[in-house]
């Protein structure tokens, strides 16, 4: 018992000291609690080291002890994992659906799904016409072509771009492809892995930005020689993005001409 009290007291003293020091050093509260928790965990480990020996068990007693031990392990592991901050899959689902939409449309499955959607839309239109005819009591419906009115036949990206919404598609691609993980823009994102891009429009044309996205080795940012050498910018975008989306992203990026931000000078390599 004395062992437990002694170790617990030391753990508390160390834990409180760690909280005090980390508070003085302006660590957020959650880190202060983490340090306190680690001090208490350390105390528990030292309690275990000086704990009296466990008596030998056998037969049913040892079987029960093993089963209880497994139950404790499972509970601790599952609850331990659940205590960490959890990523919300809902954040990703919409994004993934948008990224994969053009690819799905190009597959047999996508074509079949599009066909089914069109058939459903047609079916609904026919039903709507039928009810209209019923109310009018006429028979002109057969002359009308519902296909011509179907909005499903058009690619959403193309229609949006055609409507002059190209910039919005470009910005959406910035979010979807998670470019912000490495590049800072408008003061957001970036972990110094890649250059800040607020002034990229002053240095590169739309075609050059497109070239950089499709072939990252073609242009190097000044001061990012190591990253360029190691090929840190993924060369997957030519495969995972649609050409229209790359153009939209490049066009959107080319509008950033904030000279007050120190965007590194691009050096052509190819």
């Amino acid at each position, binding site marked *: 018992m004395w062992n437990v009290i002694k170790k617990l007291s030391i753990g508390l003293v160390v834990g409180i000291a760690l909280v005090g020091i980390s508070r003085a*050093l302006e*660590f*957020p*509260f*959650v*880190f202060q609690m*983490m340090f306190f928790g*680690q001090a208490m*965990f*350390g105390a528990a*480990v*030292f309690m*275990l*080291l000086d*704990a009296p*020996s*466990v008596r*030998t068990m*056998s037969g049913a007693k040892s079987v029960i*002890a*093993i089963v209880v*031990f*497994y139950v404790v*392990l*499972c509970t601790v*592991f*599952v609850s*331990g*994992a*659940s205590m*960490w*901050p*959890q*990523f*919300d*899959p809902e954040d*990703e689902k919409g994004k*993934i659906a948008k*990224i*994969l939409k053009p690819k*799905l449309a190009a597959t047999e*499955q*996508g074509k079949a799904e599009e066909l089914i959607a069109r058939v459903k839309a047609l079916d609904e239109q026919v039903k709507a016409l039928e009810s209209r005819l019923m109310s009018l009591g006429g028979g002109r419906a057969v002359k009308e072509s519902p296909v011509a009115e179907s909005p499903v036949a058009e690619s959403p990206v193309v229609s949006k771009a055609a409507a002059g919404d190209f910039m919005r598609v470009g910005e959406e691609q910035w979010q979807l492809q*998670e470019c*912000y*993980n*490495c590049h800072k823009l408008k003061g957001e994102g970036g*972990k110094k*892995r890649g250059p800040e891009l607020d002034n990229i429009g002053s240095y590169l044309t739309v075609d050059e930005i497109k070239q950089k996205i499709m*072939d990252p080795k073609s242009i190097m940012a000044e001061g990012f020689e190591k990253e360029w050498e*190691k*090929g*840190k*910018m*993924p*060369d*997957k975008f*030519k*495969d*995972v993005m649609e050409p229209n989306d790359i153009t939209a992203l490049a066009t959107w990026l080319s509008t950033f001409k904030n000279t007050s931000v120190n965007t590194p000078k691009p050096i052509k390599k190819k």
Partner: protein
Amino acid sequence: MKAWQRSLVSACALLLLFGGTAYAQVSDITPVEFSYTGNRTAVWIVAQLHTLFGAFILGAPIFVVISEWLGYRKQDLRYERLAKEVTKVTVVLFSMTALTGGLFIFVLLSAYPQFTAWFINQFHLVFAVIYPSLFISGTIVLYMYYYTWETWKGEKKGRHIALGVLLILVGMVTLFVINGPTSFMNTPPKAEGVSSQELLASATLWDKIANQTWMPLNLHRIDGNVAFGGFMTGLIAAYMFMGAKSQEERAYYDWMGFAGNLIAVGATLFQPFTGLLLAYEMCDYDFSFCPYMMADQLSMFFEMQGAMIGLMFLAINYYVWLSLKRIEGVEKVRMTILVPIVMVAFPFVMMVVMNYYWIPDPMSLAFLLPLVLAPFLLGRFIPWTVSARTVMKIGFLMVIVGDAIWLTPHGFAATGAKMLPELELPEAWGFLAGMPGKLSAIFTLVFVTVFNYVMYNRAIRQGIIVWGKIDFASQFVLIFLAFTSIWTMGLMGAVRSLVRKYFHTYGLVPDFTAESFTPTLSYSAWWITGITVVFFTILSFAVILTLRPSDAKKQVPEGSPVPARAK
């Protein structure tokens, strides 16, 4: 289970495999909907179970043959008995590996028919010819190895060990072959300026197998399988120790647990480094893997991994602590004061050095090597010494400090995008969450463990081990290590699979299903725990079936020269 029953199970499994391969060629198969689990989790469960059984039957023979060879060389019957007992369990689990392998192909095929057909076509020769042939060869060699044990004794022992080596080789080749398609899904071949689809069309089977992460995965899994085999031996020994009726039996299983654990620890010390190599190659292949794993969606999986590895290293050292207690005369063992000094200084010095001279800068070695070697080279010239107990307690303190460094994240948010200032590590302390910090934590855990084993070695040279008199708590430590190592395997296996994001095969075959997203750590932990429990239940059943106490009693003469007080 009798030999004919095991053969029947293996034959059924192979039929499933062949049938699955052939069925995959049929076009227009509609996917089956697995209720409750969903398709992705159903595939995950069977794949992970197959990986666990596979790890056992590949890792155990390496362990068994080394043990048999040691027994032959030292003329120590305990090694011989250990090897034979683990082989008995391996024979039972071999058929389970085949069964889960066949089941895996069928579940994959029914859940993702189009992808499976494409995948099997990419590796048709592997799935239809090479892998089944290797599996059949492995089965034949394993049965030959097991059934010639009694006949190839004495002068013929060398022949039996050679057969064991052949078994290891077949197992290794099987592992290398199946790692080809596995690693291909993460890192298919690519070339600058060529689209992945175009490159794939002209790629040979070898190009697909020898992809960028193939060799790192091979190294990580070989090392992992040896550790796995060792921890499982420890688990078997713990069960048998708990069921032992006599002190002689307890002495033998105490020794077996220690030997199994020793091999496992030796292999575990390399695991973080082979794991880092695999992660490095993944990041080198596509840098977006890196933030996805370490900073965003999977960052908390790595926090959990840090917690699990920290717990494992604490348990490994606690087992050494309990083992030291059963050595008579251990209180006389002392070590130079440089050992605790270096232990305490090591993580901080390493963190500073790594911040200035990052790997592979040789300057880092110029600072760190003399520090590590100081106790060995300068210890004899320094008159101050400390007791083994004190060294170990300081070691425990440093394991806790090392794990605290490992667990310090950039911030308490599941993704970098949702990081708030009140959850983020202050910029001035950012180095604690950076790679130099993590590396210093890993090296501290390894360094302390190595020193503790060096001290244990010194203790057994100066004192006498009283086998069988170990604290009963040690058996729970062995069970804990086996369970935790498997759980961690499951966790990191999930990370390796999830890194593909919304692709079945990265950049080539997108996953259009509704389950194409990153699951939460909590959800993953439930399933990893469930899979581990299923594996443990089957393994425990296999141990009870093959090594039940009545059998052990009969075998006493074989391993009986186990003195209660021996080195």
